[in-house]
């Protein structure tokens, strides 16, 4: 589903990723681990096309990203749900933020309502549907982002530090939710520094350090 081949990414004089090669299978749930500044977010940003690699090649769902036409980019992005590390919630209600993912995909308003409420219930945020992000706690904002990422049932779910603002119980709930979604066929990649998340999951863990893929193991 996702294939990195010798991918490198440079910022000025800094190497964010160096010759990274790995692939994640369709339907897999995998983790990207590593300390702060290791390149986890950069790796995910390459997948959802927020950045372009400086070297190497990158395939998502069988599509070679380098040769892609610009007009196809939105359609590839719609296959991908992203939990952004910095949230990127718009200044609208939680409902509208989550519904946005469906509206972008052209889903009718009639279908949107039940879908959004159901998803908000999954992340335990149904009661905040009409709140604005500025009136949410950190963890509530994070759960709103998670709801937006999963509501449209994407082919691939990329989650960047999805539990950084969540207490262990809530975090465990979110991981359980991800596993359910994964069981229904969605490929999931979670970038996290929190080893608790993947301990004893039996899922593959790719560890980055200073832009190098230093180990591949099983959690």
């Amino acid at each position, binding site marked *: 589903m996702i294939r990195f081949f010798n991918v490198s990414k440079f910022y000025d004089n800094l190497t964010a990723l160096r010759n990274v090669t790995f692939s994640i299978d369709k339907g897999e749930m995998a983790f990207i681990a590593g300390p702060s500044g290791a390149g986890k977010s950069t790796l995910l940003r390459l997948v*959802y*096309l*927020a950045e372009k690699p400086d070297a190497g090649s990158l395939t998502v769902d069988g599509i070679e990203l380098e040769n892609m036409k*610009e007009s196809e*980019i*939105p*359609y*590839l*992005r*719609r296959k*991908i749900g*992203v939990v*952004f590390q910095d949230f*990127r919630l*718009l*200044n*609208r209600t939680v409902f509208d933020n989550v519904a*946005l*993912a469906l*509206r*972008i*995909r052209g889903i009718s*308003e009639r279908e949107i309502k039940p879908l959004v409420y159901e998803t908000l219930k999954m992340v335990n945020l149904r009661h905040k549907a009409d709140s604005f992000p500025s009136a949410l706690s950190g963890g509530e904002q994070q759960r709103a982002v998670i709801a*937006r990422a999963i509501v449209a049932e994407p082919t691939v779910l990329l989650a960047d530090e999805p539990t950084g603002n969540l207490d262990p119980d809530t975090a465990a709930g979110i991981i359980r939710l991800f596993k359910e979604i994964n069981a229904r066929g969605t490929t999931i990649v979670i970038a996290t520094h929190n080893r608790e998340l993947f301990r004893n999951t039996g899922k593959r863990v790719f560890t980055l350090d200073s832009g190098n893929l230093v180990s591949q193991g099983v959690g």
Partner: protein
Amino acid sequence: MFTSYPFKVALTGIWREKWINFLCILTIATGLFLITLAVLFVHNIELATRKLPEKFSITVFLEEGLSSKQIQGIIRTIKSNSAVKKVKYISKEDALKELKTSLADAEYLLEGLDENPLPATIELGLRRSSVTGAAVENLLEELKSINGVSEVQYGRKLLSAIQTIKTNSEAIGFILISALSAGIVFVCYSTVKILFYRKKDEIETLKLLGATKGFIRAPFLIEGGVIGLIGGVISVAGMLSLYYPLYQRLTVSIPLLKAVSIPLGILPYPPIAGLVIGVVGALIAIGRIKF
């Protein structure tokens, strides 16, 4: 349609940040108000100078000893010319009376005359549209060729003076109003662009979520359009609500204002201009969307 997604986003967006949007609306309203004011100013100067040509006249001197039937014939011929607006016949007797009046105290100068030496004349007023060099030359040729006409006189200097003033004031007015309009339209556009500058983050997020260009632009264009349209409507409303009270008060001290005219036909233009400015401003503010 107005409850569809982009409209809802646009309208709630305007409402939520109503103060800053209102400021932008007022800016556009002010800009369009000023342009309208300038157009009206030039329009009224134009109206005022338009009446000048009517004061331009041609004098036709008639030969001696024409019968009144012949004179009637000449008058009819002249009247049939489309460039001629009005015709005034001055008989020999009238001409003498006029001369006596103008000599005033020196009237006794004429006492010894046994015969009236003054010729009968016809004064012509021209239609506005005909007071151009070529048209007048044509008319003069025609007049001279009429039987019974001995000479034709006209104010060549006055004609050219009128034309110079007209051309000059129209050109200067055009330059001024163009500069003003271009400037104010730029200012309005710039305001909309600065207003939309703060949406950069939102646009970036929409792109990352997989939105197409159309999906991203629609609400912003609608928002810009609504802001511009309201601005245009306010400028017209301001114009009308200021016109009557201010007009009545000012005409007391400035009688010239009585001649001021506001053609109702221009009223739809400020809102249309506002709409266009808002939409184009938003469009350019969003800029080229690159995924």
